[in-house]
């Protein structure tokens, strides 16, 4: 299958650079996959599992949270707020974060802002755990 260049960047550095066959991730409008020779495209990313099929057919999954995906003249750039490869996810930490967020929400009495933050934290933890499993 034909491949296309992909670059994955986060504020913690450029995590991946190379040719891939396919990249699948969750955008604000639902899951989507990018293949080679895609037209110019731009979307915002949601929270969810993402996977990249490498040149040799191996598949790597990751937790991808927020950011943008753009395809410009054949080059795909995926700039995420966080991108963690499956093997890099710290399950214990995610578990702890999930518990903390759940407790916060269960306790109640939060302001709108706090509630938003807590539920975002919970969602992030859930995404990480679901990818890890």
């Amino acid at each position: 299958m034909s491949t296309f260049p992909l670059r994955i960047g986060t504020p913690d550095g450029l995590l991946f650079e190379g040719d891939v066959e396919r990249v699948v991730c969750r955008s604000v409008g639902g899951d989507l996959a990018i293949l080679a020779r895609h037209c110019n495209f731009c979307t915002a990313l949601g929270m969810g599992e993402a996977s990249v099929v490498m040149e040799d057919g191996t598949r790597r999954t990751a937790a991808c949270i927020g950011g943008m995906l753009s395809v410009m003249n054949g080059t795909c750039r995926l700039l995420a707020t966080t991108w963690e490869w499956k093997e890099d996810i710290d399950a214990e930490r995610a578990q702890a974060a999930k518990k903390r967020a759940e407790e916060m929400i269960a306790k109640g009495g939060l302001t709108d802002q706090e509630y938003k933050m807590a539920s975002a934290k919970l969602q992030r933890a859930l995404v990480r755990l679901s990818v890890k499993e």
Partner: protein
Amino acid sequence: MAGNMKAVKLRIKSVQSTMQITKAMELVASSKLRKAKERAETCRPYFTELHETLKDIARENIDFSSVYARESSNPRCCYVVIVGDRGLAGGYNANLFKCLESAAEGKDYMVLPVGKKAVEYFRQRGIECLTDRFAEIAGVSVADCFEIANLLCEEFRKGTFGHIELCYTVFTSMLSQQPEVFSILPMTDIREESGGKVDTKNLILYEPNAEVVFDAIVPEYLAGLVYGGVCESTASELAARRMAMDAATSNAEEMIDKLNLYYNRARQASITQEITEIVAGAEGL
């Protein structure tokens, strides 16, 4: 003569203690610099990719349904100014302010200062600040950058200002740091800056539509750029301080050498005088 000698001795001592301080500051700056440089280097690819992507989009975008993409009718500009918390870093802070002033000349503008020196500077000049919550650059994290970005977006949508520019210091190397100002919003400004006319008809597909996409990615993009600017500026500040302190230390060394020479000459002269006096006294006996 003896009084003169004492004054010189005192002066040597004071220069020596100053030198100790500058040397210590240099060491502190260089050890902090290593970490800051690493941070700037890991962040840089994201920063440049983000900027490049948005430049590409701006160049080829013809969908102006989003506020962030349209040309703004409000001429007011908001500068996000990133400088250091402390002085004694050579021309680091002053250079950036000079650069800002030449860029903002004749414009109606307000600022969002990051770094104590910026807050002080704009307060003194009576320039309106959006907020001074982020006065301490040392404590600015990714989360703070998101907060800054959200604040900027909110004010931008409200129409408090129609343009946003970022003003920071690029960390080119240990020896050279360059202040820079560039436009980050709206898209039409970015296009003008990259000098691109729409020559290709390379349309971009936005999913689900341009407005939703821009609303979602612009805060993220702003946060990324501000964070990148903070990382670069922190590294630049430390590098500038290290250089300034290195120069100060070597100047102090030079001064001590000169003063020592002067002191020895004075000592020699006083001894010679004493001998002359004794000889003259002995002859008189």
